[in-house]
């Protein structure tokens, strides 16, 4: 049995009081409780940004790396130790800006990890520049005349490239978010949850702007319908859907599966030093 207190971290929280990140943190914790994952069975990976500080606030293993580079770190951890529940927590700048190339290519790999993006449509920690998801024409502390670039469509991009679990959550709906996380973490394969997180300090929209627009996908929504999912993933503006957009329950090759099937199925850490004989035989290729 695991209780929420087991995840209590000693580190001082550095977020703004009232930041919706707290909601995401609570939702992650309660999902982990629901899944009964012990702190030592969890490995959180993050880059740099407000979102990326989250691992410090949840007692577990973590690697808080460089801005934009959480995914390659996580993918490698997952291959070396598939038994760990590997969760990436990142921001929209971290994941889609600096880390855009890894986002694109990690989807293609289908590693068995969960990706949680705190999408506040802004660079929070660096004080309010546009992120790849900031809306067109929104004014920021750097885009004084408004953003001129089309926003990125990360969910649709993920769907396009075969991501088998694509969802959007809302930081204000902790219960719903926690359920999403449970589903995502249970899922075998790359599970991706983009979370709307209205930054109350630099955000270009108010909390109520989001609240008025967000709606849950209806119960009869068919989450196996990819075309529909693509449409939902592109819906943004007057109405903003949340929920699981797509889930592919068919078995699918994941990152490292070929290796595990053919070469070694387990934690690579359990492999010791190679026998001298192996090296001798390999060297003999050159004799």
């Amino acid at each position, binding site marked *: 049995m695991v209780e929420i207190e087991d995840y209590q*971290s*000693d*580190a001082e929280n*550095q977020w703004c009081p009232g930041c919706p990140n707290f909601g995401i943190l609570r939702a992650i914790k309660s999902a982990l409780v629901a899944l009964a994952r*012990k*702190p*030592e*069975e969890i*490995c959180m*990976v993050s880059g*740099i940004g407000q979102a990326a*500080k989250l*691992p*410090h606030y949840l*007692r*577990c*293993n*973590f*690697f*808080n*790396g*460089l801005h934009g*580079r959480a*995914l*390659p*770190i*996580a*993918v*490698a*951890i997952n*291959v*070396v*130790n598939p*038994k*760990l529940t590997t969760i990436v927590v990142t921001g929209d700048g971290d994941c889609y800006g600096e880390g855009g*190339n*890894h986002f*694109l*290519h990690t989807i293609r790999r289908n590693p068995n990890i969960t990706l949680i993006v705190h999408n506040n449509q802004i660079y929070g920690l660096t004080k309010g520049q546009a992120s790849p998801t900031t809306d067109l024409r929104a004014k920021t502390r750097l885009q004084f005349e408004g953003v001129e670039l089309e926003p990125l469509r990360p969910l649709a991009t993920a769907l396009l490239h075969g991501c088998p679990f694509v969802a959007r959550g809302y930081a204000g709906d902790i219960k719903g978010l926690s359920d999403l996380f449970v589903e995502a973490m249970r899922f075998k394969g790359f599970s991706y949850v983009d979370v709307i997180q209205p930054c109350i300090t630099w955000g270009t929209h108010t909390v109520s702007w989001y609240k008025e627009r967000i709606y849950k996908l209806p119960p009869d929504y068919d989450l196996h319908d990819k075309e529909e999912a693509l449409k939902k993933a592109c819906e943004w503006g007057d109405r903003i859907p949340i929920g699981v957009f797509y889930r592919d329950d068919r078995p699918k090759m994941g990152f*490292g599966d070929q*290796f595990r099937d*053919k*070469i*070694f199925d387990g*934690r*690579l*850490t359990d*492999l*010791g*030093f*190679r026998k*001298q004989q*192996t*090296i*001798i*035989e*390999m*060297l003999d290729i*050159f*004799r």
Partner: protein
Amino acid sequence: MIDINVVVSGAAGQGIQTIGYIIAKTASEAGYNAFSWQDYESRIRGGSNSYRIRVSEDPANSPLVKADIFIALDEKSKAKYRPLLKEDGILVDEQETGERIITVPFVDIAQSELGDKLFVNTVAAGALTAVMGIAWESLKEVILEEFSGKGDVIVSKNLTAAAEGYKFARNSCEGICPWVLPRREQKHYLISGNEALALGAAAGRCRFIAAYPMTPSTGIITFLSKYKERLKIFTEQAEDEIAAVNMAIGASYAGVRAMTASSGGGFALMVEGISLAGMTETPVVIVLAQRPAPATGLPTRTEQGDLLFAINAGHGEFPKLVFAPSDPKDAFHKIVRAFNLAEKYQIPAIILTDQHLADSYFTLDDFELDKVINRSYLANPDEIANYKRYQLNESGISPMLYPGQSHHLVCCDSDEHDEYGHITEDLELRKRMVKKRLRKTELLRKEIVPPEEKDISDATDVFLSWGSSRNAVFEAVDRLRENGARVGAIHFTELLPLPEYEFPRDVNYYTVESNATGQLGRLLRSEYGISVKRAIARYDGLPLDHMYIMEGFVNG
């Protein structure tokens, strides 16, 4: 004393690599030392390349320039490389006839005997073997081995082709070709730097490599991928070098020894990752296979232009290891050592090679596997009560565990952090953490092997060199001494941290480097205060050879 240099030239795609490799292998099979290096353009077909094979009785493993035997597969290459042929050298040619020319109608033979022009290369290899005076049996062995995977028909056709070429040339050789290389009982390894590094990584318990293709480093991941089943190593082509280095760091954090490899441009992209490894104290091994730069430069040529870049790579201050092996055997052991020391000191380790070491085939007698140290430097979780990944202690080396190993939590942070790995803004703690990290350098320095000295006791002039040029430099010393010069050499293969070392006094120092600015000289001056008289510099993309060095020493 036998010391033959064969130059095989032709366009990319014509198969000079096959010819060159087969005759090097054949010489090795016959019990001789073979050393081969390549000079090739950055293209897949066409252009004009050469493959040079030095065959000698005694170990040589360094390039010769002038050719004793020369063959060209096309006119362009003939024009370009023929000037290398010595006056008393032998030209092997399809059509040309004349004194000291062995005319072998390769294409005719291939077509009439085997019905396919494809076999031209094997015919040529046969002819060259004959000219070198090596017995047919050695060539036969090599053909059997090299083509064995391709089915009996191919094997027998190649045997026929080789035999025809051999026969034909043997006959014309009489009275012209001076060489006889009776089979010797020696058994050698013929191996390239990249292959040795890959095997060294295996011997050093590497279980993970991620890399992005970049000449001349690609051979390492290619080899490991080919043998991943036998070696149980996970290999991954990353989307870019940034992903590659971060994957290696992630794998290392997760508990296995991990590496990546690239050349200058890709290495440049990894530099932030090196700093990450420094801050998080995550061991990682990075091979930097140098080529002429800046930028894309000459992608298939050689240079030693990244020494100071590698040594100073990464923002901020943290301990790091830089090795530059001199040959494949050294590369093998250095990378084992790099894995061990990287883990022991929890630091990034860089192995500097270059195209010359990476691609050339060296002859080696023995790998001395008994010298490989198999030991892990991870902590024992059972002996730890309250685990602190960045525990402050005297050595600066905190206990390293990996996540999931035990109930202890392993927390790593790229920000300045407290002992548990949490972000800190405590500036006193910052100071202690900086000191802790830097303390490791002083311990590490004690493990560094001093430079290799050659003939310095009575030397008035001393060469300073590093990395892949060792054999050429030492050969130059020998030759110069034969001419009465009192020269010596000090050769570095471990370059960061530099060990305590007493330099001979009152001698003239010359740096011998494949770069234009004498980087080693600047490094040594900053570290030891010694001054260099002159740099013998090569930066045209070709490897240092002893003639070049001698010329540079004598004529400036």
